[in-house]
């Protein structure tokens, strides 16, 4: 496994801090919800850019050092490197941005019944879809579109569209958020 894969952990962990730790404290400093949300989106985009840059750097510089072994980087697994390293970095950036927004919205909902319902639905989808072949195919198509996608343009377009939709949904959740 490439060391660069671990950089993705930062993308997974950051929304936890933004939602459970920073929101309340920023509100106590006098920030408003609008500024908080815009700041979150900008931070996610900046972080996605930095993580993508670091992982691409590791993939180019550190991974080839282990010439005796096959080093697996997520950029290869997701077939993004088929489009050249620059486009692969872009694909990675938009995918990580989508992951962070998805987690942000999901975590924001946890204080409410619809958050728990979403958790149950997501777990049910994984549990039910995985063992049943036709349904597994549906899951496979979905992940082929948002993650393991060699078609850069299609992949980036889907990530951007889903991110936009999730951002709007996240705004609705934020509007209901109490302190």
């Amino acid at each position, binding site marked *: 496994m490439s060391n660069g894969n671990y950089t993705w952990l930062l993308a997974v962990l950051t929304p936890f801090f933004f939602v459970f730790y920073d929101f*309340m*404290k920023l*509100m*106590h*400093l*006098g*920030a408003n919800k*609008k500024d908080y949300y815009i700041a979150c989106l900008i931070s996610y985009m900046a972080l996605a850019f930095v993580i993508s840059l670091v992982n691409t750097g590791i993939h180019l510089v550190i991974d080839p050092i282990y010439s005796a072994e096959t080093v697996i980087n997520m950029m290869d697994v997701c077939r993004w490197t088929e489009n050249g390293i620059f486009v692969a970095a872009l694909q990675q950036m938009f995918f990580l941005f989508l992951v962070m927004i998805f987690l942000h919205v999901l975590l924001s909902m946890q204080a409410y019944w619809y958050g728990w319902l979403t958790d149950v639905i997501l777990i049910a989808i994984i549990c039910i879809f995985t063992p049943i072949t036709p349904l597994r195919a549906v899951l496979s198509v979905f992940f082929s579109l948002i993650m393991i996608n060699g078609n850069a343009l299609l992949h980036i377009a889907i990530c951007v569209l889903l991110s936009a939709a999730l951002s709007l949904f996240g705004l609705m959740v934020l509007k209901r958020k109490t302190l």
Partner: protein
Amino acid sequence: MIELKQVTKRYGDATVLKNLNLSIDEAGIYCLLGRNGAGKTTLLKSIAGYQNITSGTIKVDGKEVSTALLDTGVSYIENFAKHFNLPVRKLLQIASKVNPDYDYDFALEMMERFELDGKKKFNHLSLGMKTMISTIICLSSNKSVILLDEPVLGFDALMRVEFYDMLSESFKRHPRIIIVSTHIIEEIAKAIQKLIIIDKGTLCFFDTLQAVEEKAYSVSGLKNDVEIAVRNLNVIGEDCVGVLMTAYIFDKPLAESSLEIHPLSLQDFFIQLVGHKGGVRK
């Protein structure tokens, strides 16, 4: 300007605010009084748009407030508010970045007046100091409505005196609506213009301190004499010991009488207004 119309807030079966109507249209320092569980925090949080009400409307500067309003223009600070574990000076700096009209000079001035170490991290401060930081941040924000929920909790006597001075000074610099909820009634009297008293979710009193000074008094004497004297007056409480009786009045002054008449302190007025024994109003 704050306008509350028929505001009701329920948590399950419990009704915390009941058809509350209140209109504050003048800048000033207002004191919000009420017993524990009277609905003070719920009221303040609802005005700040931190939680939704069950029915009714709340408007601040003409805008209807709810959690859906992303920028309410209200600054609210609760007791024991948590902040980032950063040095005090850094916290004040960040606050100045997120509040467009922040008075940074005032914040620094207050930091020095309260001898707060700018390099000390928030978690290393005492409870009183933490509360003071929150209050300074809230007052320096210069938003049109400032809501302070029990800001003197954890303050020693000297800090409380300094706090009341800070409140007055902040208001002089930027006149706006400042609502302070507290239990230490007599001390804050010097700093405030109007008094809001709520009990069991309803508004009991909203008037100036002058009104309390002029209209609130006690009448003591023989039970029969007192009953006759206060017959047509607004009696807010009574105490009886044998044949002696003390009636607490909020009304026009009593004409010359042989009975003992004493003005009510703010605390006594509050106690008589919201006093209950065994869940039943006296």
